[in-house]
């Protein structure tokens, strides 16, 4: 009985810390605005929406990899999947969760778009170096 209570409590706090950790990751990219290049290739107009995430990720995979972005993108991808799951299951019982989940998914899309901007810049740099050679 006690073990079951501890398990339930620790799962709850684990979830809370996971959400906060992911929010701290996406929050760190909020100060950076989405570049013009990214807007052109992704079609994001003013600010990223949750539905933009999949498209941004597809384009991200076409660009050369930046190892320093990899772990952050993986964690945010896990968070995005969690939000989708929440939207498809939990939000049916508690509809109030839906706007919150959408806002969070928009944060994930913004994070990915900022990473895409960095990768495009890196791509440009590499191209410029090749031209010089």
């Amino acid at each position: 009985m006690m073990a079951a209570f501890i398990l339930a409590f620790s799962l709850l706090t684990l979830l809370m810390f996971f959400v906060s950790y992911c929010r701290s990751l996406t929050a760190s990219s909020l100060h950076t605005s989405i570049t013009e290049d990214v807007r052109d290739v992704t079609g994001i107009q003013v600010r990223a929406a949750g539905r933009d995430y999949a498209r941004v990720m597809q384009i991200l995979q076409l660009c050369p990899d930046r190892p320093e972005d990899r772990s952050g993108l993986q964690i945010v991808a896990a968070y995005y999947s969690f939000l989708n799951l929440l939207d498809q299951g939990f939000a049916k019982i508690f509809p109030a969760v839906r706007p919150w989940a959408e806002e969070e998914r928009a944060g994930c899309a913004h994070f990915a778009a900022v990473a895409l901007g960095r990768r495009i810049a890196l791509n440009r740099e590499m191209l410029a170096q090749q031209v010089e050679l």
Partner: protein
Amino acid sequence: MGAGVCFVASAIRRSSFLKYFFLNLYVILSLCADLLRQFVLRFYGLDSSEYSYAYYYTDCLLTVALFVAVISLASRVFAELNLGKHVRTVAVLLLLGTAGFSYAVVAQSAHRLVTMFAFELSQNLYFVGLVLTYLLWGAVLKLQETRTRVVQMVLSLGLYFSAYAGSFALANLAPKYVFVQYLGPILGCFLPISWSLTLLRHSEDSRLTPARLVAVPR
């Protein structure tokens, strides 16, 4: 072990070794403990009393080091309110209190008193560390802490303690499943990996919006 080396190397590379000295100390001690356990295991075997002593004493030492690491982060969070000194005093009192309580619990068993004390202290101090981490996270939110590194390090500790408590509970509920036995060692790598990512990803000056940290905004 690789994760620990990675964290210490990133701390040195980012000139943050002394800034996060107690976190580094914990990771270095856990590396030393791993080496010592391996050495004792190879020479004496898993069922030997030498291995049991080595395991429980190093475990106790690591729990004390982790407790100190939590306190070092707490004194950073409270430093802006000039409460760093008070945090350290409370930490010493808590440590002494936990040691006293652990001694009182095991005092009756004269047989293997020191080992029992090490085990009891390790368990109790782990619980105190867990509660302190939750309180520290509450303080981070209340004081609107903006330093990205500090915030992510506290969050990593929260994730680690929650996952560890969950794995203990799961081991009690479902001891017959083999995967449960591997959860502890896997979780052991989590803290150094997560801390190194924080050091590599963010600079000391990096700041974030405190309102974004609450899991469900008010």
